[in-house]
């Protein structure tokens, strides 16, 4: 069905929707999203070491991880799980520590059909501007380019507050 990740970011709506199908049953995909020893094998960018400091998968449980670059640069992220995380629904806040206070709310659902699982992430941002700043420069770019890019990102994010 879906060969690549389907990303939808509508103008004027502070959402991002991400959909992708995986050739694995739902329980396994859920484990890959909740067990730190599995998470570190896929979530961080290539050539980055991912260190999970905390991953308390329960209602009110906190999480924090760091992506460490080959040059020693560190990119921290943290948040809290809301509601009992299950394969039906995992809700959590998400905050990049380079832009404190710019928090998104992510809801992840897993749907299984014939042994294959569709992952759907619905992210809600505080504003369209914050959403756009994240897509333009946040994770994808900032983490790969080092601190110069982070400075530029922060400069863009400041007026949003």
């Amino acid at each position, binding site marked *: 069905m879906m060969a*690549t*990740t389907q*990303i939808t*970011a*509508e*103008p*004027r709506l502070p959402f991002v929707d*991400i959909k*992708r199908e*995986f*050739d*694995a049953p739902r329980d*396994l*995909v859920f*484990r*890959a999203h909740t067990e730190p020893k*599995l998470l570190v*094998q*896929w*979530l961080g*960018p*290539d050539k980055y070491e991912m260190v999970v400091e905390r991953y308390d998968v329960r209602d009110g449980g906190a999480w924090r991880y760091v992506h460490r670059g080959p040059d020693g640069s560190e990119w921290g992220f943290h948040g809290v799980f809301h509601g009992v995380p299950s394969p039906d629904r995992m809700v959590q806040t998400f905050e990049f520590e380079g832009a404190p206070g710019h928090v998104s709310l992510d809801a992840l659902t897993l749907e299984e059909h014939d042994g294959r699982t569709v992952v759907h992430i619905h992210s809600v941002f505080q504003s*369209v*501007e914050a959403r*756009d*700043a994240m*897509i*333009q420069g946040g*994770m*994808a*770019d900032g983490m790969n380019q080092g601190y110069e890019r982070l400075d530029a990102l922060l400069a863009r994010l400041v007026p949003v507050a």
Partner: protein
Amino acid sequence: MADQLSAVFGALADPTRRAILARLTNGDLTVAELAAPFAVSQPAISRHLKVLEGAGLISRTRRATARLSHLQAAPLKDATEWLARYQDFWDARHRRLDALLAALQAEQKERNP
């Protein structure tokens, strides 16, 4: 930048405007020429052209009494590049997850053949 992208995506959200852009890839056209294949009036086409012009997707010049519309491709390129990096980021992440899930399933099969 974000404002222009919103304008571009807003302009592209309408099928008539996308059809107008597609026709302009073959060369400049007047409002009358643009309106011909559509079941809408020239004033309606003019409103669409105003939106496209506001998003920087077309520019308009005068030829005698007619106004010509001209396609401006740069904002379209920006619009596709905008999401492309983010898309690459997620594609790479999800390919790693594909590999992990395949390895986990192979492991399970080995344990319970």
